[in-house]
């Protein structure tokens, strides 16, 4: 996701005009922004291989059916993500596909977090409670963020979404902390969600302020790139924390 964020921020999505090859070959000339796009493609391949290996491993060893299914859904999501990335190149980066690609990345990450949560203590597949609501609002906010980033909408819906998503995440984490402060497993995801939510607010303000201040500067400015990428990545981590909380939360 960091590599994908760097591609978008460096305006490098079409630096390799073909797919799945790169400038007609396996390894393109590694100059300028081609490096960001090529690194993103290599990492995507690595993610696809690792996710497939995880699914095969779980198929062989994991007794819980829902965990095996989750792993195969992750494989399907990663493959769909690769196809979507290829379609973006072929169709010259339409906004709708770019937003779908960014949103599906969040789903891939959320599925991975759910699998990890399943490996470390979650016994049931059903996300519930305020954590689930927070996860849904955070995902919707990520979609809005992608729409802003790719120029489909203005900043106002994303700011309104931030208020709702922040409220949902704080409500979920604080409610859990108040009710389960002494419960060994509950405070950790709640504190993680709370921490990432706070970080995400600051990174969002930083990303917006830097971008607004540098609107007429020749882009990409390193500060603009890194504050924006940090906002994207922390946003994904916040969603991941909400998924963890939702899967840990007891009814």
């Amino acid at each position, binding site marked *: 996701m960091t590599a994908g964020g760097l591609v978008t921020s460096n305006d490098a*999505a079409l*630096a390799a005009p073909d*797919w*799945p090859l790169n400038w007609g070959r396996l390894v393109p000339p590694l100059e300028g922004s081609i490096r960001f796009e090529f690194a993103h493609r290599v990492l995507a391949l690595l993610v696809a291989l690792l996710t497939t290996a995880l699914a095969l491993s779980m198929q062989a060893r994991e007794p819980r059916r829902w965990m095996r299914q989750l792993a195969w859904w992750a494989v399907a999501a990663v*493959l769909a993500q690769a196809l979507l990335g290829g379609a973006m190149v072929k169709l010259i980066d339409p906004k709708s596909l770019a937003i779908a690609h960014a949103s599906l990345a969040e789903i891939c990450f959320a599925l991975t977090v759910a699998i990890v949560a399943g490996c470390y203590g979650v016994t049931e597949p059903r996300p519930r409670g305020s954590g689930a609501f927070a996860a849904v609002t955070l995902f919707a906010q990520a979609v809005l963020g992608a729409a802003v980033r790719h120029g489909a909408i203005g900043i106002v819906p994303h700011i309104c979404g931030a208020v709702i998503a922040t409220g949902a995440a704080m409500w979920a984490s604080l409610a859990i902390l108040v009710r389960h402060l002494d419960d060994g497993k509950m405070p950790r995801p709640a504190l993680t969600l709370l921490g990432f939510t706070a970080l995400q607010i600051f990174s969002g303000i930083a990303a917006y302020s830097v971008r607004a201040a540098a609107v*007429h500067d*020749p882009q990409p400015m390193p500060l603009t790139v890194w504050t924006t990428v940090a906002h994207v990545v922390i946003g994904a981590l916040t969603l991941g924390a909400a998924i963890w909380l939702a899967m840990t939360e007891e009814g």
Partner: protein
Amino acid sequence: MKKIWITVGVACALTLAGCGGGEKPAAKSDAGTAPAANAGAATPDLDNGATITGKVTFDGTPPAMKTLDMSAVPACTAAHKTPAKSEELIVGADKGVKNAFVWIKSGLPADKTWAVPTTAVTITQEGCMYSPHVIGIMAGQNLDVKNGDPTNHNIHPMPKINSDFNQSQPPGAPDFEHVFPREEVLMTVKCNIHPWMRAYIGVVSHPFYAVTGDDGTYTIKGLPPGTYTIEVVHEHWLDAPQDQQITVGAKDSKTQDFTLKG
């Protein structure tokens, strides 16, 4: 589980179907229509038509020109003796704004077609910058794109009305030609390898347009008598073009200035 396997299978098949389909950078492409036939088409009447001249002036304190960071590509840095500057806003000593696109937006007879020049408009990638930075071209006229650099480029216009394309052009590659069939003012052109590279193209269905020079002045010649909306568009104020009404008679010489607020 069966459904999952089917989904994975379909995705793999689609992925493999895409293998080997990498596009070799084409030397030439023409995503638009062929240049319009000029039979019966009008040309500007330079003897009897009106002339509009004017100046686009910056109102305020001109900002300093920003330095472009080309350090990621040594071939680009080496092409400039001094660090290259952003061309987004070039204001001359007398506050004339360079690279503003001025055109007749409306008022010409709707049933009249205008002859498309048979010569191409050339844009060159040189020193990892587009030159000229702003061009005007008629719909149907050939655009000739050259790579004069010892490095790879890709030309990526971002039209909203015409079809877009993303064309790679390695060093020494033949010129790439393209035709924009529809009027569109003002489209951004990027290079996704060198993100600081920008050019702007105004595609117009008639020959009455101009790009301001170093001193911010422009001239439009051969305009038939009539009342027109004349517009100035500049990349720094891309979302805020300025329109003015102007009436001209035969052989008139009129002045229409514009002021862009900083």
